[in-house]
């Protein structure tokens, strides 16, 4: 137990969250170099803010910073909008694995839905944090995540029968 106001160790593991923030940035930017730059910038900016005793608030701040930096990156670089499809994978061998169907199903989701899938089911971000990031109620976010999973299952089901 620790009390607010005292100097305390951070409420999350930086190494673990580095990977997660990097994955989120990569999904947004689709570029490893830029994703890593923004990940590091995110953590440096996070250090400038007051400490949070709550892990959820700290996570919310991390993802807010990362999201804003990704958005700013697009504005500065004036790059084209990301295509809906995930581009050809670098590792060709991976395409031959059983994950092809899932990858294709993911590619059919909208960019925002892919982000939600990554945040919730890979980065394990709590629903209340995601709902705050997207400005919707927790109930609405929970329903949206369920719909996304149902959509993925439908896509996989259809591809399986083809």
């Amino acid at each position, binding site marked *: 137990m620790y009390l*607010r106001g005292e100097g*305390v160790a951070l409420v999350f593991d930086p190494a673990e969250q580095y990977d997660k923030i990097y*994955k989120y940035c990569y999904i947004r930017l689709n570029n490893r170099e830029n994703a890593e730059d923004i990940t590091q910038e995110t953590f440096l900016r996070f250090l400038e803010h007051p400490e949070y005793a*709550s892990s959820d*608030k700290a996570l919310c701040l991390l993802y807010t910073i990362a999201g804003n930096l990704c958005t700013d990156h697009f504005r500065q670089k004036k790059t084209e909008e990301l295509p809906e499809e995930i581009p050809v994978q670098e590792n060709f061998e991976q395409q031959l694995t059983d*994950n092809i169907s*899932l990858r294709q199903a993911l590619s059919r989701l909208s960019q925002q839905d892919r982000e939600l899938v990554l945040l919730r089911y*890979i980065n394990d971000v709590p629903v209340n944090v995601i709902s705050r990031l997207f400005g919707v*109620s927790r*109930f609405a976010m929970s329903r949206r995540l369920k719909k996304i999973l149902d959509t993925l299952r439908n896509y996989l089901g259809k591809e399986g029968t083809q």
Partner: protein
Amino acid sequence: MKDMDKKTLEQAFSIPEPERKDEFLDKYGSQFQRSTPKPLACKLTRFAAAAAVFSAVFFAWHNLGDAGKLRHDPGNSTVDNIPFSTSSTEFSTSLGTTALKTTSLSGNTSTTISTRTTAVFSTVTTDSAMTEFSTEFTTVLKTTDISTSETVISTEIDIIPHEFSTSQSTVLKTTEKPPATATTAVHTSHTSVLKTTSPQETTTTAAAQTVPVEELPESASREVVPETVYQKYDKVISMEELVNRQTTASPGSDTITPAEGGVPELLISGEVLENYYTAEDGIVLTYQTVRVTYVTMGSAVQEGDIITVVSEGGYVPIDVAEEILEISTGITGDVSVYFPGVADESDIGREKNFNLHEEDSYFIIVP
């Protein structure tokens, strides 16, 4: 989601590994571990103060008698029943005695801290309207000069009993007793129940508006019961109170946002037949079975239909509440925690107006 599914999903995203992670953490990793150790005695003093305040609350609670009259029984550490009405129910918690003796780093002073905490909680079910009550107290912490050989921390309590009021500052919340037929919704907690009823075929001979409900043609039943249904126990404490007991509350304990946004597609009046309390993804929900009595706007339902209306808020067992709020209170037993929402136990048997948005199998309330 299972670990294997998670890994499969992660592989499907095909995200390459970062290349500069170790370099960054080597350089800045130390900045993420900041701590300013305080002297041990100060930490223990703060802990003792917190414990003393906490014990003062329960001590004050224990000594409140009928109609706010004080009852002093300082030497009694047992749990007493303090009924407020003939139909009162109670639970109690005893936190025992803590005693702490430490020696400061320099070895020149010693600090003795002792507290006794015995708590009595009473929940009251009355036959009158909603009743809320609270109590105020002031606590004085007195410490002697730390340069002396011994420091004793004691508390003085000035209890100001409150008359019963209907203010919104809730410590314990009692609700009007619903009709007997509706209170005993027998659903064992943590059981899995999945019940869906396929819509019944409706006849084309639509009933006239003046036909009594019993004589209407068969209406569609779209009742949805959640997989996990929690029983609402007689002993209820509010979410706010649970959170206030902790020094580090999870931000998930902030007020719910029932507003879903958007224009409602369906405006109806309906009689609430049943409440099912559950939680999904850490969100406390109430599924209300509603029989449509009047349709103001929309065509998704007709009069007589049975639908399910889902909204945030409701009652969950204490262990589920602690898991959702990521706190630990030590409260055990059959206790429900109330998360504020638009649905309530008192809705059962009553007719309400609903602004609804249709989801796949149920409806949600929109403002």
